[in-house]
């Protein structure tokens, strides 16, 4: 490896690291907005048929999260494309000094870039991903974490029984029911997106999006897509 190859290698790794940090920051910054959307759904949940509301809410929140995940993936890929252009511009003097350097870097990039990413996400990311077009398979990939959003059963049936006995108790129970739903939804979102409370080998949305962005970038460098 020449000193220019080594320098390009290290610059590329610095670029990857900056990109990963940007994506994490993006997801963290937008996460409160997702929670706010979940709040709205829970506040709007009907009180006439609570058991049905729970099932419906589960589906609604899963859909909401999937949609949010897709938006995040799109934003991350936009960021990646921009960052890749900046990276190429920064290394332009080195690329012009050694015309073969760009190809050598592109050839090693997929392997070295994967080294700092979650293995489960790297293994799962579709091979054919591109910065240029965001295909439905990519959107399905990031949305998949939410397909099996668990049921929200926190006691709606019992609340329904309470409604027959005391209106005051029922009102208090509804608020408690909503609070529990909210807490459970927040925890579920934190687990699915950031891996909080999850097993170490479980895929998270953030890891998936980072793997997707890095894969798309290295594909672009190899001009395969």
């Amino acid at each position, binding site marked *: *490896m020449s*000193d*220019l190859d*080594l*320098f390009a*290698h*290290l610059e590329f*790794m*610095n670029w*990857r*690291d900056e990109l*990963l*940090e940007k*994506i*994490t920051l993006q997801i*963290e910054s937008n*996460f409160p907005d997702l929670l706010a959307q979940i709040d709205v759904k829970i506040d709007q949940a009907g009180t006439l048929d609570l058991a049905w509301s729970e099932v419906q809410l589960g589906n609604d929140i899963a859909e909401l999260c999937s949609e949010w995940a897709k938006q995040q993936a799109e934003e991350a890929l936009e960021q990646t494309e921009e960052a890749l252009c900046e990276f190429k511009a920064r290394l332009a*003097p*080195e690329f012009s*000094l*050694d015309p073969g350097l760009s190809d050598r870097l592109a050839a090693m990039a997929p392997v*070295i870039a994967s*080294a*700092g*990413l*979650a*293995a489960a996400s790297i293994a799962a990311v579709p091979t054919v991903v591109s910065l240029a077009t965001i295909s439905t398979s990519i959107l399905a990939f990031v949305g998949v974490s939410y397909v099996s959003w668990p049921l929200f059963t926190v006691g709606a049936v019992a609340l329904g029984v309470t409604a027959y006995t005391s209106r005051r108790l029922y009102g208090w129970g509804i608020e408690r029911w909503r609070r529990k739903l909210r807490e459970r939804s*927040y925890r579920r979102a*934190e687990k699915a997106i*950031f*891996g*909080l409370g999850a097993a*170490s*080998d479980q895929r998270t949305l*953030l890891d998936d999006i*980072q793997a997707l962005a890095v894969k798309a970038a290295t594909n672009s460098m190899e001009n395969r897509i």
Partner: protein
Amino acid sequence: MTPLLYEIPEKFLSGIASGNLKLYGAILKNTVTGQILAHVQPTSVLDKLLASTLQGVSTTISQGFNPLGILTTIQNEQIKSRLTAMNTTLGVMQNLQVGTLAVSGLGLGVSVAGFALMLKRLKAIEAHLHELGGRIERVTSDRRSDDLETIFADIATDLETIDTLYARRSAQQVAEAAQVSLFRSASRLRPHFKRVAAKDEDLTHEDLDLLWSLASAIRLCSDAGFKALLHIDELAVAADIARKEAERFAELSDPLAPDRLARLCSKSADGFNQMTELRTVALGKARILTNGLRDSAIQTASHMSLANTLIERGISGQKYLEEAEQEQGRPLLMLPAQ
């Protein structure tokens, strides 16, 4: 006698500032032509300036080692500003981390620190590893035959041996043996490093500090081994080993994405808000660690280039080192490439 090392001219300093020239480690290059213009070399004056600048900032640094997280990024910048204010030539160090400097003597050019000082630094790293106590036991528990204490004892012996080279009749053989032994010690430290780096759960700030300490010890072996080879004028061997070492530092840094390390450190958080706080704190440390390894890769690669330049110009490695060590006034000098 014609000097080998010269003051860095103003046109080079302004060239760096304008972007026409760039420092790749200690190699000063023209960004357009790629031509190597010079190798920047610190002198013993810089060690003194650095020591006085760091006074009051951290007592541990004055002992020769900077544990991860002692110096903040802001302090790093303040120290660099103070150094630059003392001597404008030091502006060339703009991209270096003082944290790295404190670990490796300078992180620029060949360290002019004597082997006795390197030994002091090694002891400080070892003492810090002891402070990390329980963590070390965990790291070494599955590698009973080869624990860190033995490796550190071997490194210390090699540094002491190299320190006596001037007084030896068989300096050549002794230096070669010590260099090989240092090289072996670095190879024995790397699996410890990789084992901690591969953790994908329960990563802590202590683990990051442990990685930093191990990386510092590996760097110390690399620097001392290179300097030993320069002493005995084994320049071609020095260049070859430096190239391999540079690649190894890069390889060590590849899996260490600061973002991932910081997120692993915050995974035990109780909720989103605590997670972001923990992640932010860990991220600063993780960046220092990763950048330190990558700086080491670049600096070690510049060792290779320096050795090749010395060969091309027919300069003795020992003479080069002596001139850098004997300089009394200027903190940074340069060896013109031609």
